[in-house]
């Protein structure tokens, strides 16, 4: 190889800021090639995919609706990944939270009033957190790899949801459709604009992003996360408990995924169905990395990935191509983000040219 990686003397602040932007640009360039290979004019393809969804009030609201769960889950995951703890089962925790929170409107028919919705939120967060604590406990007690256990539990959660909506939680008046009853008005996520789609989940996500930014940069506990992630040896010498951090990171990320889940079923969906997420839990992994594990960056990244969903739908309707193209763009984006992040720490130099250390 004519070029070799060389560690920079200090991290490049310039690359840290611009690597997500370069990654998005590379994704767009690859997208142009992809459209051309499908026989679609690349300019038209990209504009249908990435610009059209930004041009109507309806789709802008939809953008916010889709960004909300991505931001919530992404913030939780960023705390895990900063501590080098790999929760990749947020999709399952999202489902677990949705199920726990839906208990009240589905099983306690007739209970109404102002406490229903807060109870659902609390149950949703608790459900997501408890489900996330399974891989945490298996990791601490038995050393089982949390990447694999958290991922495998996604399938278990999805089958459980499927059983509930086809079995005990099916709407008795629903003509045998695999759906729960529609949530009553007291159990619905409040909307920001009457008659619109945006719900209070978005301002909640923004507040949580600010809290997370404060927590990560201004508290001792937030600092511990950084140390455990970057230098586990130093963390051990300092007496930071790795086990406690695993429990904390999984509980927080699970609770946020669960919150996203209950907000989604009580909001845009309004009932339980066999499928309640277009893969938000997995896409949020990309959101976390594109946002460079920074809560404010994650808010912006959440919108970029939300746009990838809307663009997929637009491409299907307008260009007649499969909406699976959204997953392709998402996968490409993660590849490019990871590649660009390398340049924050490393630079390339030509082999044979030895640069003097200053």
């Amino acid at each position: 190889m004519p070029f070799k990686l060389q560690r920079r003397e200090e991290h490049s602040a310039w690359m840290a800021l611009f690597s997500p932007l370069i990654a998005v640009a590379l994704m767009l360039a690859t997208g142009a090639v992809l459209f051309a290979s499908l026989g679609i004019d690349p300019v038209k393809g990209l504009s249908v995919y990435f610009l059209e969804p930004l041009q109507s009030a309806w789709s802008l609201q939809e953008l916010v609706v889709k960004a909300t769960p991505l931001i919530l889950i992404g913030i939780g995951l960023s705390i895990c990944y900063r501590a080098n703890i790999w929760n990749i089962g947020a999709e399952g925790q999202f489902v677990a939270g949705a199920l726990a929170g839906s208990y009240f409107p589905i099983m306690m028919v007739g209970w109404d009033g102002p406490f229903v919705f807060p109870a659902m939120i609390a149950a949703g967060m608790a459900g997501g957190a408890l489900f996330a604590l399974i891989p945490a406990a298996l990791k601490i007690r038995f050393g089982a790899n949390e990447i694999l256990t958290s991922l495998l539990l996604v399938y278990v959660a999805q089958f459980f949801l499927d059983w509930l909506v086809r079995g005990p939680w099916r709407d008795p008046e629903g003509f045998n459709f695999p759906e729960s009853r529609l949530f009553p008005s007291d159990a619905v996520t409040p909307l920001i604009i009457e008659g619109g789609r945006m719900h209070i989940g978005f301002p909640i996500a923004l507040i949580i992003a600010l809290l997370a930014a404060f927590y990560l940069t201004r508290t001792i506990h937030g600092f511990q996360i950084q140390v455990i992630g970057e230098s586990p040896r130093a963390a051990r010498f300092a007496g930071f408990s790795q086990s406690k951090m695993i429990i904390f990171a999984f509980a927080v990320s699970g609770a946020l995924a669960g919150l996203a889940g209950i907000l989604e079923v009580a909001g845009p969906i309004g009932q339980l169905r066999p499928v309640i997420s277009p893969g938000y839990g997995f896409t949020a992994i990309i959101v976390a990395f594109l946002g460079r594990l920074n809560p404010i960056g994650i808010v912006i990244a959440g919108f970029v990935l939300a746009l990838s969903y809307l663009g997929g739908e637009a491409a299907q309707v307008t260009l007649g191509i499969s909406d699976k193209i959204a997953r392709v763009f998402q996968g490409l984006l993660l590849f490019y983000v990871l590649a660009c992040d390398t340049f924050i720490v490393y630079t390339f130099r030509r082999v044979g040219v030895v640069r003097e250390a200053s």
Partner: protein
Amino acid sequence: MEMYEAIILTIITAATPLLLAACGELVAERAGVLNLGVEGMMIMGAVAAFAVAFSTGSPYLGIAAGIAAGAAASLPFAFLTISMVTNQVATGLALTILGLGLSGMIGDAYIGQPGVKLTPISIEGLSDLPYVGKILFSQDVIVYASVLLLLIVWFFLFKTRAGLSLRAVGDSHSSAHALGVSVRKVRYLAVIFGGACAGLAGAYLSLVYTPQWTEGMTAGRGWIAVVLVVFATWMPGRLLAGAYLFGAVLILQLHAQAAGVNIPSQFLSSLPYLATIIVLVLISRNRTLVKKNSPACLGKPFVPDV
């Protein structure tokens, strides 16, 4: 056909893709690369094999396409993790996401199309043996290949000099580098081999297991294959036992569903995933066993000093 024969034959069918994918992942991990993109490479193999077999009518060209697609899918992962030293976990996830998306796009045209089934090859004379004939000597070419491949991998890793170098790269990349082994080259080859195996596993799914294309048809088998490698504690022999054990769990829940056992089908369907978690926990409990064989540099990027 006897009942036991039918059950064993279906277990072999369920175990073969797991064995193939896990075999490839084992080699990649032995070289120190944790590739979590098995699911993505596998489904790329499945869709490529189906598409080529469908348009040419030849399942054997389908197999070749599956292998090529799996190997090709591993290339961006190999480049990023080996040359660009990116995080292996995240890069593997990206590969899985990309593979699921790309296969869905390519496969859209083939939904509902009749597949081309790979037919078994009966070995003259031997396949008529009582009891074992049908099971051992009347399989399709991929089943024979899967067992043969495992033997070759075992021989290569533990009986050849090149295999020793590969294990050295996985256990201590700096030492291997100092001894003049090209760490990057070994890792590239190991990852591409893993991709080819995952692609072949995918081809088996869309040509034999269910000869048709359905979106996401790998259904987590790539992930189960990754667990199998841990279960086998990175030893090829144990991989064979593990794959057939998991194959049995996958099949028995199907037989239970068919027999109308009074348990909701969703619970039976989630059994293989729960069983995988339980097995992972049981094996991880024994930390010395896992530590003993686990490649010491697994998941660690390599940047030479000079």
